[in-house]
């Protein structure tokens, strides 16, 4: 009896072991990222902001709090009723910041998504096929790169008119070239590896090779750039809104709030300070996360 159970044991032990071993590259990256305290702080802050943005309507009603003016309570400092005070029209700054986070994140994510979608596919095609196609695509990208991205965004918004969608489009398009370059560079380094040739040798077509073999391997630097890119996009949104090209009043947006409060800087500094701090913390958090990801994804640090 005992000999039977002894014989069975190693087999039983083997199975869960095999399951534990099922650790993908991404699980490995996550494990390394978790060790990086700064990156985790960044991730926590971003998590909190995302949480606020998702539940913004629960935290403060849009129509009755966020855009409703209350001239009796103009430029009040922080108090129990308005924890971050009120702005020049008596609106609760905290409520406006929470709703403003929605806009910022939305623009940040969608603009970067757009840029990765367009820039990434252009870069992948240029890198994979090379030759003349590569030249044509990348020279077009160079033309875009020659124009300062904020100027390009301003030009696009002024041509199409200020709206949330146009803002995303403008910021997205202005950052296409940088993604195209990054994806192309990383595709170039992967294209000539043996497993790509092996994929060709099993009869895979170009589409399959690009989507299943090259892109998953080229993703690491793009993820890092995207994290930092979201920060850049949020900053551009704030910048464009500050000069009146972005989100139009009375809709709340961090840059627009800064812009609105700047006349009252001497009497009610909190109107500009809080949105400014919000922008700063968000960007900082995204940059910390981006740096952490870069370290976690760097194969040279693997051990």
């Amino acid at each position, binding site marked *: 009896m005992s000999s039977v159970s002894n014989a069975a044991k190693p087999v039983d032990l083997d199975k869960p072991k095999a399951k534990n*071993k099922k650790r*993908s*590259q991404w699980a490995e990256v996550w494990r390394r990222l978790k060790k990086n305290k700064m990156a985790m702080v960044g991730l926590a802050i971003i998590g909190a902001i995302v949480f606020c943005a998702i539940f913004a309507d629960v935290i403060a009603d849009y129509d009755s709090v966020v855009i409703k003016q209350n001239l009796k309570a103009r430029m009040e400092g922080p108090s129990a009723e308005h924890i971050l005070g009120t702005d020049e029209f008596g609106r609760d700054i905290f409520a406006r910041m929470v709703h403003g986070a929605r806009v910022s994140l939305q623009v940040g994510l969608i603009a970067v998504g757009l840029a990765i979608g367009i820039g990434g596919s252009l870069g992948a095609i240029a890198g994979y096929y090379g030759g003349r196609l590569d030249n044509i695509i990348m020279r077009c990208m160079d033309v875009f790169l020659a124009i300062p991205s904020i100027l390009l965004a301003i030009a696009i918004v002024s041509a199409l008119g200020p709206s949330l969608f146009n803002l995303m489009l403008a910021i997205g398009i202005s950052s296409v070239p940088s993604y195209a370059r990054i994806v192309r560079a990383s595709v170039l380094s992967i294209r000539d590896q043996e*497993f790509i040739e*092996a994929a060709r*040798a*099993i*009869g895979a077509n170009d589409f399959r090779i690009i989507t299943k073999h090259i892109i998953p391997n080229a993703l690491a630097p793009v993820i890092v750039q995207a994290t930092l890119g979201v920060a850049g996009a949020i900053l551009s949104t704030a910048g464009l809104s500050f000069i009146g090209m972005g989100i139009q009043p009375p809709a709340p947006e961090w840059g627009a709030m800064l812009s609105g409060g700047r006349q009252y800087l001497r009497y009610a500094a909190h109107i500009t300070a809080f949105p400014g701090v919000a922008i700063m913390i968000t960007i900082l958090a995204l940059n910390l996360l981006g740096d952490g990801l870069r370290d976690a994804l760097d194969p040279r640090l693997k051990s």
Partner: protein
Amino acid sequence: MSKLLKINDLSIHYLTEDGDVKAVNNINLELDAGETLGLVGETGAGKTTTALGIMRLVPNPPGEVTSGTIEFEGRDLMKIPEEEMRMIRGNKISMIFQDPMTSLNPVMTVGEQIAEVIEIHQDIAGKEAMDKAGDMLELVGIPATRVNDYPHQFSGGMKQRVVIAISLACNPQLLIADEPTTALDVTIQAQVLDLMRNLKKEFNTAMMMITHDLGVVAEVCDKVAIMYAGEVIEYAPIQQLFENPSHPYTHGLFGSIPNLDEEVTRLTPITGLMPDPTDLPSGCTFHPRCPYAKPICAQQAPKNSVVEGEHRVKCLMFEGLVDKVSIKGTDQGKKEVV
């Protein structure tokens, strides 16, 4: 019976800015179903280019098939459309690459990679393909429970087994193995060769074994083609090649490996280096390094001469233009030097 693979007069050149790299020059090879052909030669002899040529995977540009035909099952592979060629790759002809460390995609599980070739060529997808991938793993001696593991969780020998599983998943007629054991250590080499030989027998697959290791050739091949500077200079059934190597270069190869039967203090490597493929020597390409070379060797290119049966050799000695030096036995090269 018609041959499974018939290469006629194949030339592949790389057209670079520094000149034409003549990687493969007018080679002729034949292969029957179930047969194993060894393609032997030094680095740069054009072995891999020949293999890529058969798969039609020579990078173009700069590579270009300048002449010749490759008949596979009676069809010229050079003429069929790319789409059809893709259905042959991995399905009827598959290839094992030299380095198992780099020929697997690091971000896909081995199961997915085996399943991929099945999905491409057979009407099987999803779980069924994965099950089949598991069966293939079992076949090469890896427990099927490891289908969800990533390549980095395997050792080199096991990775090469996975690569073999991928290449055999669709039961190909022809398997091209490009130095499949070069990156492995000797004990694993023996295991992998054993495995390949057994599977080859089981599936009746023809195999083209590219190697520079005559030991590997002796172990697995039925026929051998010795390549030098893009040409097949000697072609013979295995027995005849080892008993009666005829080309001076083949002698040189045998002289470069240790012989167990004899005490030799020094090996006699072939002097000199492979010629520059952009500027091949005139006449016989081997003449600058050939210990028996005569002035005529620099002028006249040798043709194929039959030594005996299927045994052919490209050397002027066998055309009667150069006095035949009596080279008998594998250790002749050594004696010449001593």
